[in-house]
């Protein structure tokens, strides 16, 4: 097991390298650069082509692509992620802050989605085709049949504008630095996020539980007179969880950068919005570093999932 984990960690190095090269290449291929972003024709009055050229020179954008990539890589290996080209802030600080913000909302959202999703999934599996099963299925599908942005607007409109229960977006009230105020701002976006993702966990749990409940060992355990509850928790639940664990792993990058529209409507300064803004402004130091962070998370999640497979099901050998 330890050897397996060490090997996977070593394998992560070429994967990360390949990923950064690919991302860098894609940024290169995308039309325009950050200087084109500065020269937004809507507002740029006053900049000449010579100014833009000087800016490109100063930002090092005139160097050949491989040189720029190696320069970036050299910096990263020394722990220097450079400065954001449009925010004039060290990328490390920026990512740390945004990632922390995202983790709060994602942490709550994922926790609610997973706990409720799995609980309801087990519940509906045990009562397959009951009225409760259909009702819960129906409601959970409302969550995934609507764009996140619209779900966010509806939630804000109902709970902030009409009922006044929650603040309409933002992370804190200006000048207020209390935990209560922070949580008050987090509840609504986190709940919307969890509703969007809950259906996924619920359905996977349901299907996989249905599958496992019919397996011989579960049937045997039940036949031996073991109480149903114990069978479910001790046998079926553990094995039924495997696909769910996979989906949790897969959800992480989606939760980290996929929440862009939700963060936008809640004016929440998280990673999704940062990544999106960086892409549409070609702020490559931020894009690269953000990708690296996301990749580390994905690789870790996948590794944990694989180890979990082996832990849950002893028949699987890690090799």
């Amino acid at each position, binding site marked *: 097991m330890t050897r397996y984990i060490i090997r996977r960690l070593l394998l992560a190095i070429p994967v990360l390298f390949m990923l950064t090269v690919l991302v860098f290449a894609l940024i290169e*291929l995308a039309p325009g650069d950050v200087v084109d972003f500065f020269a937004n024709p809507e507002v740029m009055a006053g900049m000449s082509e010579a100014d833009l050229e000087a800016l490109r020179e100063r930002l090092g954008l005139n160097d050949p692509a491989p040189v720029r990539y190696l320069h970036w890589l050299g910096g990263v290996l020394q722990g220097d992620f450079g400065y954001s080209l449009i925010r004039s802030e060290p990328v490390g600080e920026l990512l740390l802050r945004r990632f922390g913000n995202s983790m709060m909302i994602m942490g709550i959202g994922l926790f609610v989605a997973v706990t409720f999703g799995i609980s309801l999934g087990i519940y509906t599996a045990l009562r397959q085709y009951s009225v409760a099963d259909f009702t819960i299925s129906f409601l959970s599908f*409302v969550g*995934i049949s609507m764009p996140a942005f619209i779900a966010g607007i509806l939630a804000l*409109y109902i709970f902030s504008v009409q009922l006044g229960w929650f603040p309409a977006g933002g992370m804190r009230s200006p000048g207020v630095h209390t935990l209560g105020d922070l949580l008050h701002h987090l509840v609504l976006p986190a709940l919307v996020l969890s509703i969007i993702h809950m259906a996924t966990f619920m359905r996977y749990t349901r299907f996989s539980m249905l*599958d496992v409940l019919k397996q011989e060992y579960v049937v045997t355990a039940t036949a031996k007179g073991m109480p149903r509850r114990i069978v479910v928790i001790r046998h079926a639940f553990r094995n039924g969880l*495997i696909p769910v664990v996979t989906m949790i792993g*897969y959800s992480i990058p989606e939760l980290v950068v996929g929440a862009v529209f939700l963060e936008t409507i809640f004016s929440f300064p998280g990673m999704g919005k940062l990544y999106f803004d960086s*892409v549409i402004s070609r702020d490559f130091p931020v894009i690269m570093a953000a990708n690296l962070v996301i990749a580390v998370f994905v690789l870790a999640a*996948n590794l944990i999932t694989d180890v979990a497979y082996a832990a849950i099901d002893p028949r699987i050998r890690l090799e």
Partner: protein
Amino acid sequence: MAMTEVTIDSPARVAWRRFRQHRIAMVALAVLCVIVILCAFAPFFSAYDPLGLNMAAIRQPPSAEHWLGTDTLGRDVWTRTLYGGRVSLVIGLAAAFLSTIIGIVLGVISGYFGKWADMVVMRITDVVMAFPPIIIMLTVAAFTGPGLVNVIFIIGGLRWPPTARLVRGQILQLRDQDFVTAARTLGLTNAIIITRHMLPHVVAPLVANITFAVSLAILTEAGLSFLGLGVPLPTPTWGNMMEAARDLRIMREEPWMWIPPAIFTLITVLCINFVGDGLRDAFDPQQLIGEK
């Protein structure tokens, strides 16, 4: 139930018989058929042109003339919902199909053959999973311009990793089980072992996966339009019709513009899910017909 009959019939017929007994799945299938027919033969169910603007009838609420009202250009919302369904259903189903096929193939290779194949496939999966799709979309958009086929390939081409990992996980579990070992001892080819003995066990998680892939594709198409890569307007899709609710005025004062496509999407996704339920039961190797 007559077990003897079952052993005589082909597996497909058995499955179909089991499926037919699944009342909800049959209802869902019927509803799905209705939606597909409505969309496919939209001209028969609507007297309006989905693209024809009418300056005299802008933003009108539902009426006898326009069952679901009109949009910001005076176009009939019922008509656009039906025509939009054509594009959205194609995108949803094709993208889900594509990602499922890629996912199954790579998942099987990885799980069944293990070793180097597993290592390579799973590292590719890592890379694709770690790629936020927006950057790929942007680059592709720059080179190919917007279009239906691009949307399908981008969504399908990026959604397969969870399928691959799910399939791999299931295959890993099955690989060393007695019946597989027995099949191998009997000298059955890998292809037969995989398709006959292993894949049926993978159907359950896949059904859930496909359901989500369909709804995700329908919604993602709308998001793509922001980067200039969605299906270009004025072609209606359920996704871009729903996106109209980004405008606060439409969201709260003119809900007839966005609620119909939202309901159609919901019903479609629900039906696909229930049909999937039925299929799952029908193909379930352990399910005994007489059990219920």
